[in-house]
């Protein structure tokens, strides 16, 4: 996060304003409107005072016209309050929805330009959560909380000024009451004990949430081992701990909160004794009584406004962490795009002394000083145990990450000097996890080459061995993935993905063959599909089943990030090194049987 000379990143409110950008004016305007609305809410009180004054001063003669004028004033005040607030909320919503829209778009755009590797490590679930929840919260903040907050600051300020102007002595009494109310309230926040309780309560809440996830996730295992009672005990302990702390925390306010409520509803009690004393000594009783009445009528308005402040201040904390989550992703640097793109001369893939570490940490290298060349049109297999770095090599070819050291070249050109577009065109990556869009199968295949004709799509589907099952579907190629009743097995989906790669027809194919053993028929079909895909291409294959690579032009053996051996199958076997050990393990595991003698005690 902290870069040496970068300006301090903005957080919370400031950051929200920055996000609202060109809508800043609208946001401020809504804050002004909302403040005006709050001030307008005083008007009915003042109108009632004026009416009372009118009636009392002329009593028993009453000037109806004058009073009706004030009645209209009250109604206008009410209407102004409602309309101004409506306008405020409307402006703030337009700003908020607009900002939300732009933020989401910006976020979506940003994540297409960060190295794809981040998507693998961060995961789409978390990305989605950020888009759906964290970014969404900016909307509520701009739309509701911000204008309310501004109003809840300006309205009391205006009120205090009015109170002090009308009669500074009574005004002062009222202000003392307001200060007292806040003092009581913040007494609760300030105390050491309450801070501890707050921390404990937060921890307990977190514990309970984690425990609940673990409880449910582990339930199948726990049930399978007949231990659900113990697991329930554990979970219920965390629930009880939470309840205990939340109660302690809440009850910590049991005096402050009611005291606050009591004070803001009884500020008049401060005025009364003072008023009585003044009443006894005043020269002009009439005008004094009018002033006193004004305060008695107006002061209750304080209660509603002060209450609002309490609610608004809470929301400020949350927006901070929400915005921070989003910025975490937005701060990931985009993959640098070259200024002078070079079109590679051939489809040879070369690693030159490549080192790479996922976290930039020299201690934790995933690949160390690896060099090899995969000649155009040949098949190169990469083998090794899990964690040996073989998948990392595949990721580096497609530039999911940029190398830490050395270079990856295609046709002699460093891939960092090839335009993103050209690289995508040249390299196809066939993934283990297959994603199909909720579109027709036809569109899903055609994605590999957006201007392919219908015939070409069908030809690709045939080559990938999926034509048969597609035509058996109710709507054939027009079947939309994800519609009810359309169920494709994992193997069928994989074949569609292969068809997509076939139609794309990139000269370089990176293949992760991590296939689970499935039923024999499907397996066979997938292999045929692979054959079609790999024909005449430069293939880099991460192999798991060693029998698959017997005829590979080159086998690269990885161990703990280093390349330990390189050569053809027969050469490596003859050498009797690491590959020979892997091969022996492999053949013995393939011959393994369960049953018969194995089971006899």
């Amino acid at each position, binding site marked *: 996060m902290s870069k040496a000379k970068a300006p301090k990143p903005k957080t919370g409110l400031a950051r929200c304003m920055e996000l609202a950008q060109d809508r800043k004016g609208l946001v401020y305007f809504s804050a002004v409107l909302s403040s005006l609305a709050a001030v307008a809410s005083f008007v*009915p*009180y003042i109108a009632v005072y004026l009416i009372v004054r009118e009636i009392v001063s002329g009593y028993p003669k009453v000037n109806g016209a004058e009073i009706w004028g004030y009645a209209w004033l009250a109604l206008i005040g*009410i209407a102004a309050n409602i309309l101004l607030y*409506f306008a405020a909320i409307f402006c703030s919503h337009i700003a908020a929805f607009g900002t939300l829209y732009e933020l989401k778009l910006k976020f979506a755009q940003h994540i297409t330009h960060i190295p794809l590797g981040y998507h693998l490590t961060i995961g789409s679930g978390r990305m989605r959560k950020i888009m759906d929840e964290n970014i969404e919260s900016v909307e509520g903040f701009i739309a509701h909380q911000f204008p309310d907050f501004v109003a809840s600051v300006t309205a009391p300020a205006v009120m205090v000024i009015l109170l002090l102007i009308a009669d500074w002595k009574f005004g002062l009494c009222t202000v003392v009451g307001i200060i007292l109310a806040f003092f009581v309230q913040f007494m609760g926040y300030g105390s050491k004990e309450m801070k501890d309780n707050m921390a404990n309560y937060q921890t307990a809440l977190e514990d309970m949430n984690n425990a609940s996830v673990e409880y449910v996730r582990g339930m199948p295992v726990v049930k*399978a081992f007949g231990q659900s009672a113990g697991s329930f005990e554990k979970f219920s302990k965390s629930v009880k701990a939470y309840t205990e702390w939340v109660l302690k925390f809440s009850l910590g306010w049991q005096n402050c909160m009611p005291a606050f409520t009591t004070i803001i509803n009884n500020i008049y009690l401060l005025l009364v004794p003072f008023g009585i004393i003044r009443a*006894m000594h005043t020269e002009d009783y009439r005008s004094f009584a009018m002033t006193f009445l004004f305060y008695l009528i107006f002061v209750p308005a304080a209660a509603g406004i002060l209450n609002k402040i309490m609610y608004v201040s809470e929301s400020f904390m949350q927006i901070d962490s929400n915005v921070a989550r989003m910025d975490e992703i937005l701060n990931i640097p985009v993959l640098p795009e070259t200024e002078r793109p070079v079109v590679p001369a051939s489809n040879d893939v070369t690693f030159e002394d490549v080192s790479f570490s996922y976290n930039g940490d020299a201690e934790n290298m995933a690949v160390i000083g690896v060099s090899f060349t995969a000649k155009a049109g040949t098949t190169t297999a990469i083998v090794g145990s899990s964690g040996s770095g073989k998948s990392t090599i595949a990721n580096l070819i497609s530039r999911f990450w940029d190398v830490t050291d050395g270079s990856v070249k295609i046709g002699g050109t460093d891939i960092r000097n090839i335009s993103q577009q050209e690289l*995508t065109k040249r390299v196809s990556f066939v993934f283990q996890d297959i994603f199909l*869009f909720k579109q027709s199968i036809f569109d899903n295949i055609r994605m590999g080459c957006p201007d392919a004709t219908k015939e070409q799509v069908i030809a690709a589907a045939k080559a990938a061995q999926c034509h048969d099952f597609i035509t058996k579907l109710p709507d054939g190629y027009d079947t939309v993935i994800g519609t009810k009743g359309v169920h494709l097995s994992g193997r069928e989906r994989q074949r569609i993905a292969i068809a997509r790669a076939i139609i794309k027809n990139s000269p370089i194919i990176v293949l992760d063959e991590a296939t689970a053993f499935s039923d024999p028929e499907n397996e066979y079909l997938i292999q045929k599909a692979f054959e079609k895909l790999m024909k005449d291409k430069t293939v880099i294959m991460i192999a798991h089943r060693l029998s698959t690579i*017997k005829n590979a032009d080159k086998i690269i053996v990885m161990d703990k990030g280093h390349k330990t051996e390189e050569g053809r199958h027969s050469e490596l076997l003859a050498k009797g090194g690491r590959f020979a050990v892997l091969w022996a393990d492999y053949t013995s595991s393939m011959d393994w049987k369960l049953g018969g003698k194995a089971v006899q005690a």
Partner: protein
Amino acid sequence: MNLKEKLYLSDKGWNDLKKAIIACTLTNLAMLLPFGVTVMIFGELIRPLTGGELDTKKLWILWGVGLVGALLVFIAAKNDYRKTYIASYQESNATRLRIAEHLRKLPMSFFNTKDLSELTTNMMSDCSSMESMLSSTIPPLIANLITVTLTCIMLAFFDIRLALCLFCTVPLAFGVILLSRRKQKQLFETQNEARLEAGGQVQEYLEGMKIIKSCGLDGAHFKKLDNALQRLRKTSVKVEMGVGVFMSGASMILQAGMGITVFVGTMLLINGRIELLTLLMFLLMSTKIYGPFLAVLSQLSSLLNLSVVTSRMRTLLSTPAMGGEGEAASGCGISMKHVTFGYDNEDVIKDMSIDIPEGSVTALVGASGSGKSTVSKLLARFWDVNDGRISLGGKDIRTLSPDSVMKKMSFVFQDVTLFNDTVFNNIKIGSPTATDEQVYAAARAAYCDEFVSALPQGYDTVLGENGGTLSGGERQRISIARALLKNAPVIMLDEATASLDPENEVLIQKALARLVRGKTVIMIAHRLKTVVDSDNIIVLDDGKVREQGTHPQLMEKNGIYRKLFDIQQKSMGWGV
């Protein structure tokens, strides 16, 4: 449906809620005291202006009464604070435990649902929102309703004409809200649709990112996302506007009552048909009375849609728990007789009969979708059959308690769940009564020793959430160690190993060989070579048993099995 059911409350919770409402009402009533005292002070203050004398003594007394009133407000507020918070936290405590307890009794099948973790997270947050509804929304709201009603009646005693003026707008305002409900609902529905659409686009965009990028489609998909988000933005503004218009309209109508009161009140005063003080009281009241109404008004729709909050809870708690009380017999031969079963309407298993003698090795073979994993789940009573019966040691498993069936079986499946706990405890889960020595022995027998001792704190290493740091092969060996420790007589094995590296595979196979010694083994086989020594190979297709027998018998029969076996031999030899 009444409120208690809508909120899904326990009896205690319901009683507590009632108490909380009463407490809130008392607070509201106490709050009228300052108002009453103010009105009376008013009366005293204007007396000199209308020809009377200023009675300071009376004012002091009123001040004293005001102080007592303030004390009462404090007591009432404290009482309602305690009542609402304590009650709501206790209630949600009870609800959380109730849900957890219920979860424990649900059939295993329930836990195979895809959105399970989401469901749980939602549930926990539902409990939290219930918590805040019960503490700070519902009781004050209902108390408001009660108090304003009482106030209406009280004011009517003073002067029915002005009371009518003050309240005549209430039904109108509520009428506007209720009438606009349909329109509002419509608006919310369009917004919801737009939101779902946008959510779907976001999901596709994120999950399909790899494809989108590798096919260079960011432009086209970005456009779709853009359109969906744009639409959401437009509908959202429209909805906000629509709802805002109704709400603002209603509250304006409501507060117009103030003007009517002033007009009528002044008329009455001019004509001498009302006391000055009564009018003043109504005027003061008119600044105060609409607040509670507005609160109710703005919460009305959420109050009417309460059941949404509890619907997820309801779904979960109404999922029936699995019955059966009996203890399993000592034998553990398994048989399936004329079993039919389907997850939805479509039968996946059709009139199937299978016999698995104690101590034998049975392999289930077939294409994906043939029903082989369903069979294994039925045997372990993850689900109950729709028709026919399954017996374990001669007893119908539906009569046995799910726990006692589980006691008989161990599972070694492909996806292994690990807990955020030490390696030791993760293995020990196989048998809580095992000694430390037994745990280590099981770990050694399952070839865990080597990789565990390479971990920073050996067996005491905490694995982190779902054991993220371990490789697939290591996880599987831990699950075998668990099963070894449990030492159940029946072993269910799903051999669908995502290709592991050869070293791991060899170790797992060795560990498995130890596990199955002397047991009744049921195995879902994918590599047919693995099963050639089985006592019985059952070939499934489309939910039915097509062939069964030993490997030589089936090869000789020259049927489906033979065909599958040959294809696999060929594909095993496939190379590039």
